[in-house]
């Protein structure tokens, strides 16, 4: 009998142990994803460590934010009761209008940035951009001539910002917020998430990525795509609480006579720049990243390298026309 007892005990212990191991599980992080389409871009947002109710509210408000900036920055469409860019571009000159605070703030930020960009960024480029667009869309063949472009009014100083969210145009300039709107909206979404204590997130709005804290105490891996046909990843950025943006995406250009013409236009030459294939910026603020990115795209790589190396907490990486990769000082910390 004694032998049997010890056998039985051993059996029971083993079974219990096995079950314990079998049904124990390590931490699993849940996440919620949503996909939106605004400002001509597929936007994917992931948030971690939230319950379903919070997720519903968060996604709802994120949609509202992107929708708002989509409508406000829209140049080609008007929306009922929304005084957006389309509206502004069509009002009479010298008429004071009051616009929504969000748009005013966005324009204000953009104008300040433009004024410090040595003339490289200009949100009043609408008239020139329209000419290029008509060629890009196929209405006209080939590329515009300099004559078609040089008499277009792009004088940013004719945009006057007044108190109480009021603005007025002194001439028939046309505004285009392409270099700022997406980054600004993304930054607003990031701020919103942090305000409701969601600190683990990834926002991916086309060439604009913003991440918070990592869901597992590691670092987010953000891949940078080669700006060529292959579109494989040429660099992985590892980091948390950063914004990563790229200018010069392979997708937004058109070809004529064997050359590519990008949709970013240099205010000085009135033509798209040819300095590089793409440049990406890493910094904390998504608006700044987006704007700086565009600006660097309009400078030679050497000038850009110089410029970024003088800045604190800003890093950049260039993919040159002949396929070389150039990194700014300190970029290593994200490799």
């Amino acid at each position: 009998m004694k032998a049997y007892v010890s056998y039985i005990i051993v059996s029971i212990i083993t079974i219990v142990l096995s079950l314990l191991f079998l049904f124990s599980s390590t931490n699993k992080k849940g996440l919620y994803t949503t996909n939106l389409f605004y400002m001509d871009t597929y936007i994917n947002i992931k948030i971690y460590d939230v319950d379903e109710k919070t997720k519903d509210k968060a996604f709802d408000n994120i949609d509202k934010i992107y929708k708002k900036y989509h409508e406000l920055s829209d140049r080609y469409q008007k929306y009922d009761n929304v005084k957006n860019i389309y509206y502004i571009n069509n009002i009479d000159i010298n008429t004071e209008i009051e616009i929504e605070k969000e748009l005013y703030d966005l324009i204000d930020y953009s104008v300040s940035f433009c004024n410090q960009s040595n003339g490289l960024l200009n949100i009043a480029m609408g008239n020139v951009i329209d000419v290029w667009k008509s060629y890009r869309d196929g209405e006209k063949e080939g590329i515009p001539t300099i004559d078609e472009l040089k008499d277009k009014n792009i004088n940013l100083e004719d945009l006057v910002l007044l108190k109480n969210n009021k603005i007025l145009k002194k001439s028939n300039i046309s505004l285009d917020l392409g270099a700022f709107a997406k980054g600004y909206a993304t930054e607003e979404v990031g701020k919103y998430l942090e305000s409701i204590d969601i600190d683990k997130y990834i926002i991916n709005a086309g060439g604009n990525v913003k991440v918070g804290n990592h869901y597992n105490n590691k670092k987010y891996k953000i891949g940078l795509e080669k700006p060529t046909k292959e579109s494989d990843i040429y660099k992985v950025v590892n980091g948390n609480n950063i914004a990563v943006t790229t200018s010069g995406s392979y997708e937004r250009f058109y070809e004529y006579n064997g050359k590519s013409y990008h949709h970013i236009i240099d205010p000085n030459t009135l033509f798209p720049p040819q300095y590089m294939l793409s440049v990406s910026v890493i910094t904390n603020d998504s608006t700044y990243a987006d704007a700086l990115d565009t600006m660097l795209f309009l400078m030679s790589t050497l000038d850009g390298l110089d410029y970024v190396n003088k800045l604190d907490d800003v890093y950049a990486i260039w993919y040159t026309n002949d396929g070389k990769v150039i990194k700014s000082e300190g970029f290593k910390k994200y490799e």
Partner: protein
Amino acid sequence: METRKFTTLSMLLSLAVVLNIIESVIPLFNGYIPGLKLGLANTVILFVLYVYSFKDALYVSILRVILVGILRTGLFSIAFFFSLGGAILSVTMMFIFKKITKLSIVGISIVGSIFHSLGQIIVGMFILETANMIYYLPWLLMFSIPTGIIVGLISKELVNHLQNDLKIKEY
């Protein structure tokens, strides 16, 4: 083979087949660990191994798998080959361990259980061309202990009491 031995072995074979089929309708842990079973048929195999010979045990094992294959899993199906691999490895290793170690019949039963699982996994990895099956090994090992013990105890009683009735030499 003398008639008495032949008939006895045949009855034992049928018993093994029946036990195998009965226990196959009791899935343990609802399939969380594939291949896990009580191994009741092993009581018979052990008995044959101890009371008769390794060769006899091997025959009964193989025939058991074939008969169960015809009746249940499908002859030459994937499950059939799993079973065959497990059964052959199991009875062989039981014989070897019985010869070279001083394990009791319960210990040998545990060995049989272990190598039955191992045999199934090895055959599985070959046929399915995936190494993923080996994940379940530690669980199968752990469960070999209680199942091996139960089967071993039953076999021990059978061997010690029945061989007299069967008029075979003392173990």
